[in-house]
Every structure is written in C-alpha cells, then in structure tokens.
C-alpha cells in the first residue's frame, strides 16, 4: 500500500518540478538585465535551474518515507477541515517526527515538499509557519529565516484578511493560538537581535538598512488590530456579557466573526496586543485593550491553556508596573492555582515546559508583590513561593538592603522588553555613534523605574516592625527607636500610609483599569499631632479553600477507582491503571519536585 503511494508522488513530482524550474529560469533571465550576453545568461540560468532541480530532487529523496506520508496525510486533513485529524498531526505527529528526524536540522523546505501537496499554496504557508517555528525553537535562525518567516506570516494574514469573504479553513484552537503567539515571539526575537549592532556581518548590515518595515511594530500591531476588527471580537464579548442569544450574536459579528477561525484569532489577537504593549512598556494601554475581556476561568475562550496562562502573566505584570500589587497578586494566585490543579490532567507534553517556566516566573513576581504589599490571600501559593524564593523574599521584606533581591527576581521574571525602533542601520554615521554609546537596554530601563517605586517605600518594613509592638506611642519616642530625626520619621509614616493603600478591582469592575482605593495592610495607624495610634486587624486562617479542593480531589480519585475495571488476572496490564490512580493523589500537594513524575505517570497511563 505505502509502496504504491510513494510511486504515485514521485510521478507527480517530476511534472511539478518542471513547472517550477521553468519559472525560475525565466525569472532570472528577466532580472539579469544584461542584453549583450543574454545568450550566455540563458545558458547559465538553465544550468542553474537544472542544478536547482537536481538539488531539490536530492533533497526530496532524502526525506524519509514516513515524513512524506505524514505530510500527505496532514495536507489531506487540512483540505478536509478535519479538526480531529489536524490536531493529531499538529500536536503529536509533527513533534514525534521532529524528535526522530529533525531535532538538529530543519524540516525539508516548503519548495521541496510542494509536489507532495499538489503545490497547495495555503498548505505551504501553514507548513512554513511550522517550519520556521521549528527553526526558532530548535536551531539558530539566520537573517534569511527571520525575513522569510516575516514574509510568510504576512502571506498567511493577508490570505485570512484580504480574501473575498471568510476563508473556508479550519484549524484547531491550539494552533491558532500558536500562530499569534509565535508571530509575537518572532517579532520580539527580531527586535532583540536587531538591537545588537556589533555582532552583525556586513551583509546583514546592508539587508537591515533596507528593511525597516520587516517586523516593524506598526506592521505587527496592524495584523493584530485587523484580526480584532475583522472578527468583531470586542462586539462579540460585549454581547456575551449582555447575555445576548446565539442568533443575535451571529447577527452582530457578521460573516467573519461567526467562524471559529476568525473568532479565535480575534480573541488571541487581543491577548497578543496585551503582550505587545507590555513588551513595549505601555502597561496602561496593555490593560486597556483588554477592556471587554472578563478575567475568569469559565469563559469559552479559555480552553487553550497556554493562552490562559499568558493572559494572567501579562495582566499581573502590568498591574505591578501600575503599582496595583493586590490586583497582581490576585491574578497570579488565580492562575497558579489553576496550573496546579490542571497539572495532572494534561497530557499534551509539548507545552509543559513553557507553562512551567511561566509559572515559575509568576511565583517570583508573586514574591515581589507580597514583599511590597503583604497579604495572606492564599496559603497554598505562599507556601510554594517560600519554598522557591524564600531567601529572596526575606531579603525583600527588609527594605533598602533587599533591593538586589528585587532586582534579581524582576530581571528573571519580567517580560523580554524591546525597543520600538531599530538602531539607525540606514545611516552609517548615526550607527557608529549608536555603537559607541549604546542606549540602556529596555529591561534595565524598566527595572530602574520599578526600583524607584520600590525604593520610595523602602522604610516601610522597619517602621512596621516597630509599630506592631504598640497600641500608641509618642512620635519622638518612635524616632528615637529608629535612630532618626522626628520630621524624617513622620514623612516616612506618610509613605507607609500610602503604601498601605492601593487601587484595586474589588467588585469586579468592568475593565481591568478600573477599581477603587482599598486598604491593603493589616496594620493601620494615624498620627494625632505628636501621638501615633496603631490598630491591627487580624485575619483568621482560611481553611475552606483547602478543604474544598481536597474534597473535590478525593471525589475524583474515588470516581476513577470505582470506574476502573477490576483486574482480571493479577499479572496482566491492570497494574499501570492502579498506579496512575495512586500517583494522582500526591500531585495536588504543592510539591515542586513531583510535577514531572505526576505528568509522566498520566501520560503513560
């Protein structure tokens, strides 16, 4: 069977290659522009074409049969809009073959596999999307890869946005998310790469001088906003919140928005904007574009875990930069608990690493927020934070001397900031000046701003530790304890008061920027002329969440056990089922070392 098929592709291949090469030959002739020795040019071109053909044939013959079969099958699944098959090919087949054949090299180029898919341009664009993503994640992309992946993204979005009406394509939600996610990742990677002038070769310098539009911020934003507008996703989300019926929504969102492909791309583009604005340091706008999104875990748009995690990471981070630590803490607690709970159910391994890394950065950010605005919101998460960042946390809780710890965690956990504009590649003189006196790196700029906020409230922990001991005391006496001037101390008390207040979304206000002023500290005080009066609020330990979670978990374990078939014979394969049941149980405990084991266990079960 497979033998026969292979022969068939090869037959098609010859014809198709002939076509391609003819075009190529004509192409080079047209471009040469030298008429006097046109004859020799043609010969050269033909020669080149023949060589190219041979090279492509050689490349084609290098492709293992199983990969060829995979591509044909994948193509068919895309043609049929068969989501189940596409998902299998996308999430499992591609990764399996990558591990087996392409862990250290590129996949075959799109031109080489074109004959396998009848030169289907749409499929080839999708294939290149995967091809470049693999180059970026596993290999070192060179300048051609960077430019071509940009061109390919443009072609893809052009096809989606500028065809007559919605395109009849369907792709799994995960893939759609990955398309947007990767698009922004490549933009960010390009900006970082382009900012390093010194390491560029002469050829790269020439290319960069002419290519100011490649991966420009405007072009990236343009794509995201176009997808948002085409899909009418904001209107869609508002309609959902108003409780409109499905038919009404269909009417509102129009021919594009009703299609899952556009709807999901629109939603993911909103998250993409959140991310791009954060990377560019516009934290206010980042949260503003999320106006119509309600942050909760019940929305139909949260099925893609990676998207969900990204959303909360950037929202939480923006809140930190807006000095809204309680909101940041709430975002992190909510998503970190989600990650802990879903850990045992997830079997799609290729995202685990990424999600795990983001989660770890969020634990670091949580530690930062908790040092700046101590809360007891969630003992579970606080426990893990103490385990991972206990040392930094205790330093950060000590004011000025904790600054290096803030710095360390911030740089580890912040987004990979970029500058909006390239170095002046088009002007040699300016470029030389740029190399001579390079600007401060974006991450360092944002770090400095964050630390200035941290520094301004540096005296708070010490004051707090003294105030905790008294119900009231004389300001002069307090100043003596602190070995400080009384006036200076009073000013620090005002800082402490300000640090204990924050704007926060307490009542689930509409829009992530809205909120009201709340008190964030359990220790409050007031100065009556020269007397300081102190009041402390105590929060009883919270048990409910823990018991509810564990009751639910016990119920699930119980169900699994009850539904598992009885082992027919003790020696048969019933054993793994039993072990996976028991290995689930410890997974809910906040034990970091156990994660991989728990997931691995589920995967093999």
């Amino acid at each position, binding site marked *: 069977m497979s033998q026969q098929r292979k022969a068939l592709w090869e037959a098609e291949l010859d014809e198709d290659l002939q076509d391609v090469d003819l075009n190529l030959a004509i192409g080079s002739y047209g471009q040469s522009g030298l008429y006097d020795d046109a004859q020799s040019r043609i010969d050269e071109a033909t020669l080149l074409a023949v060589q190219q053909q041979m090279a492509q044939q050689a490349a084609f013959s290098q492709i293992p049969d199983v990969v060829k079969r995979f591509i044909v099958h994948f193509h068919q699944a895309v043609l049929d809009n068969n989501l189940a098959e596409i998902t299998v090919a996308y999430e499992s087949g591609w990764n399996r073959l990558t591990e087996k054949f392409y862990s250290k090299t590129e996949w075959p180029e799109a031109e080489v596999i074109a004959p396998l898919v009848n030169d289907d341009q749409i499929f080839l664009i999708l294939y290149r999307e995967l091809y470049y993503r693999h180059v970026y994640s596993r290999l070192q992309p060179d300048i051609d890869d960077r430019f071509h992946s940009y061109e390919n993204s443009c072609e893809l979005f052009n096809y989606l946005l500028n065809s007559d009406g919605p395109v009849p394509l369907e792709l799994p939600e995960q893939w759609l998310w990955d398309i947007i996610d990767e698009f922004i990742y490549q933009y960010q990677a390009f900006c970082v790469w382009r900012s390093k002038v010194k390491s560029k070769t002469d050829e790269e310098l020439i290319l960069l001088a002419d290519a100011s539009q490649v991966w420009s911020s405007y072009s990236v934003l343009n794509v995201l906003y176009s997808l948002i507008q085409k899909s009418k996703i904001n209107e869609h989300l508002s309609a959902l919140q108003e409780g409109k019926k499905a038919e009404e929504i269909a009417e509102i969102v129009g021919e594009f928005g009703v299609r899952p492909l556009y709807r999901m791309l629109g939603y993911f583009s909103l998250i993409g904007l959140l991310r791009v604005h954060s990377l560019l340091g516009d934290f206010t706008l980042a949260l503003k574009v999320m106006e119509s999104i309600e942050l909760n875990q019940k929305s139909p748009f949260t099925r893609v875990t990676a998207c969900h995690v990204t959303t909360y990471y950037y929202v939480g981070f923006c809140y930190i930069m807006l000095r809204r630590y309680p909101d940041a803490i709430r975002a992190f607690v909510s998503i970190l608990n989600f990650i802990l709970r879903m850990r045992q159910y997830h079997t799609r391994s290729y995202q685990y690493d990424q999600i795990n890394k983001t989660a770890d950065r969020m634990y670091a950010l949580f530690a930062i927020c908790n040092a700046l605005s101590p809360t007891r919101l969630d003992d579970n998460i606080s426990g893990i934070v103490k385990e991972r960042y206990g040392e930094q946390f205790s330093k950060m809780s000590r004011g000025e001397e904790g600054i290096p710890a803030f710095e360390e965690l911030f740089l580890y956990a912040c987004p990979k900031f970029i500058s909006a504009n390239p170095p002046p590649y088009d002007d040699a003189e300016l470029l030389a000046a740029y190399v001579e006196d390079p600007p401060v790196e974006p991450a360092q700029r944002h770090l400095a701003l964050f630390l200035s906020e941290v520094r301004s409230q540096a005296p708070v922990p010490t004051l707090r530790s003294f105030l905790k001991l008294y119900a009231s005391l004389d300001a002069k006496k307090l100043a003596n304890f602190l070995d400080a001037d009384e006036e200076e101390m009073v000013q620090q008390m005002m800082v402490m*008061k300000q640090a204990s207040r924050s704007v926060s979304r307490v009542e689930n206000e509409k829009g992530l920027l809205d909120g009201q002023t709340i008190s964030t500290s359990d220790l409050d005080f007031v100065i009556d002329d020269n007397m300081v009066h102190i009041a402390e609020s105590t929060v009883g330990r919270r048990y409910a969440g823990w018991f509810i979670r564990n009751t639910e978990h016990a*119920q699930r374990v119980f169900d699994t056990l009850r539904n598992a078939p009885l082992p027919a014979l003790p020696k048969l394969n019933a054993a793994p089922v039993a072990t996976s049941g028991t290995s689930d149980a410890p997974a809910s405990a906040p034990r970091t070392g156990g994660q991989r084991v728990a997931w691995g266990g589920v995967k093999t079960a």
Partner: protein
Amino acid sequence: MASVASNWVSPPTRTPLIENLVSGVDRYNPSNVGILEDYLYHQTRSQEYDCLANLAILKLYQFNPDLYNPDVVINILIKALTSAPFPDFNLCISLLDDRAANTNPDEPDPLPSLLPTLTMLYNLLQQCRFPAFWALYRSDEVESLRDNYTVECAGFEDAVRDVVIRAVKAAFTRIGRERLGTYLDLTGSDLDIHVAKLGWSIDSSTGVVTVPPNPDNRIESTVVQENIQLPQLTKVITHASQTA
C-alpha cells in the same frame, strides 16, 4: 460616585474626539498627534489632567521618532508629576525609548538635562519628603524648569499641594500648623487661607490643625473571619447528590 480609577481612565473633561483617539485605532495615526498635543496644552492651561491621552502622545513619539517634541514631553511629565502617589510619571518615562543623541546643534534638546531634575522631584514627592521637594524646586538648579515650563502650567504649585494634602489627610487626624506649612510651602495668612479652603480648622491657641475624619485616617482593629459561600461548595454537593 465615580472612583479615582475611573476618573483616571476617562476624566469627565475628555471630549468625544479625544475619547475616540484614546480608545480607537486612530491613536496610531501620526497625523492626529497635533490634536492630542493641543489637548495637552489645554490641560496645562486649565488644570485638567488626562493621563491616557498624554500617554497616547508618547506612544506616537515612540513609534514615530520624527514627531518627537521635547517641550511636549516635558509638559506631560510635569502634569504626571502631580498625580503622585500614582505612578503616572514612571508610566510616561516608560514610553520614552532611548533615542539617538541629538544631532541638530541649532535646536538643543532640553529633555536630557531636565529629566534628572524631574525624576528627583518625582522621587521626593513619592517619598513624601515635601520640604525637600520645595527646597529643590525653588533652587537655582531648577530655574530653567521653573521659568520655561512650570510657570506655563496653570496651578502647578497648587497641584503639588494637592499631593501633600492627599498624604496628610490619610495619615493625620491633627497636625501642627508649622509642620503643615513646611509641607505646603506656605506661611502666615496664605497658609490660613489654604487650610480654610480645605475646610480644616486651626486651633489658634495651640497652633494645631484638625483634619476631618475620612476613610484613611479613621482606624479600628478588626478580626476578619472566613465566610464560605454556597457556590464554592457546588461541586462537592453536586457530586454527593449524584452518587447518593
């Protein structure tokens, strides 16, 4: 009543035209920068403040370095200064990408020399070091900022005093008149008038100003107990009834 935050996100003084620029995609159109800049100058004259609109200007500058106008940036930063303790100032700085050194010697860029001063002033306000703020602000070092910029910004000093009042109101029930005077940089009858305008009262015999009670200067000890809401138990109960 609209909350602090919602006033900040969309001040009631913002016109529909500006709202459209702040919230729509037209904010990226470089040809709209003039409208936003005019709106900024309107803010400096009228004591209004619209942080998001000003951030939109900085965004346009970020993407279109050719539009960059240092005077506008400085005015934005001066407006942002007085919204302390909110971090508007840093949010603005955050959008100022490092730009290539100024190449035009005829039009020197005043921003690089003023930025450290502005940052220092901001830090002093953030740290509630008000007397130090006034000392720096009145010093010779800051003369060019005062003479060229803050003088044009209507009510700048009163806006700084509003920052002071926000801090004092939250931390004090009573405060010495003299201490308040050093924070507000006011003495004698000016101080009395300002205090009276706030509706605060001065005890002339003791020289102590009484700050009216507000949510931040009324303190009480509380014990917060955990409340369990029924919806939290939905899954547990559903499961129990299903298996019963």
